[in-house]
């Protein structure tokens, strides 16, 4: 157990972070280089002002017609995304590990709050899953990989929650949790989770085209 723990909470963390940051950087750079080579006008039309204007509307809940048209979905997806980004960063258990290894720490959310939010995230994942199965327009687009991605994202929350509550086998679950978290991080650059990295660029580009060239809103 000690060997495994030391391994997954030591070298493997390094590996996952290197893959996550390195991979994301690689994806960004290779996109930029390819655009320079093949879609060079993207650079011409990209406008900071209009790009940000569009991004801003889209990252504000109910900031766009689309978000207003599907209030339930909007609430779920915003809570889900906010949680998925903030929980791992502001969870005290995680920060303690940072403190132990790097002597750095920052503000944290109370464990009880996180506990509730973890349930919210798991529920959101179930919502997305049901949606995928039930709604024809989503089902039509769905491939196995979509379920896999959803599982990858749900896993750290389910296992983390389990460990925190010290349910049966929590020691093993703790190890699984750490591995699940690492898998999630490492898979971001190489699955559709890359949408996290590309969102500012795709949305920003559409916002630039609409704003600067076409003088219209795109939200």
């Amino acid at each position, binding site marked *: *157990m*000690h*060997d495994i*723990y*030391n391994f997954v909470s030591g070298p493997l963390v390094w590996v996952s972070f290197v893959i996550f940051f390195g991979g994301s950087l690689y994806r960004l750079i290779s996109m930029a280089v390819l655009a320079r080579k093949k879609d060079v006008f993207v650079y011409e039309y990209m406008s900071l002002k209009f790009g940000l204007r569009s991004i801003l509307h889209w990252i504000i809940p109910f900031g766009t017609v689309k978000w207003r048209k599907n209030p339930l979905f909007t609430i779920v997806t915003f809570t889900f995304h906010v949680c998925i980004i903030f929980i791992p960063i502001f969870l*005290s*258990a995680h*920060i*303690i590990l940072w*403190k*132990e290894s790097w*002597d750095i*720490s920052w*503000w*944290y959310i*109370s*464990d009880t709050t996180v506990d509730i939010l973890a349930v919210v995230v798991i529920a959101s994942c179930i919502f997305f899953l049901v949606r995928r199965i039930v709604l024809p327009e989503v089902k039509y687009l769905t491939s196995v990989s979509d379920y896999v991605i959803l599982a990858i994202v749900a896993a750290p929350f389910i296992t983390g929650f389990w*460990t*925190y*509550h*010290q349910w049966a086998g*929590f*020691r093993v679950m*703790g190890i699984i949790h750490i591995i699940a978290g690492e898998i999630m991080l490492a898979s971001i650059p190489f699955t559709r989770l890359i949408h996290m990295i590309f969102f500012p660029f795709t949305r920003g580009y559409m916002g630039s085209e609409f704003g600067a060239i076409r003088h219209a809103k795109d939200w």
Partner: protein
Amino acid sequence: MEKRTLIIYTVITLIGFIFAVMSGYSQEDVTNVEDSAFEKKMRPAVPFLHDKHNETAGIDECNTCHHVYEDGKENEDDSSEEQECSECHTINKGDNSMALVKIYHLQCKGCHQKKKAGPIMCSECHPR
């Protein structure tokens, strides 16, 4: 009141007393790691059987754990079992208690990791 009844009562009381004393005595070893510097507890305090731990771990010297540092150097002849860790490892004002959590964790978990024995995961030390 009959003499026999009195004796039985006395004996029961005595046994009860002895039990209480005995249990009180043996509980002296069962204790929690507490530090008054933790004002608000995030997780339950860690139960710690001092003698049993040291027996299992083969620790004879108090200052293996209750160390004393002077000018950055460990004073091998001194020990600090009368002090709370936070007396030396003070938390700066405005600092969250993470710094103190860290030194406790490194003291316990760090050693366990090195020795590959003893609890290392959150819940192994902080039970519900």
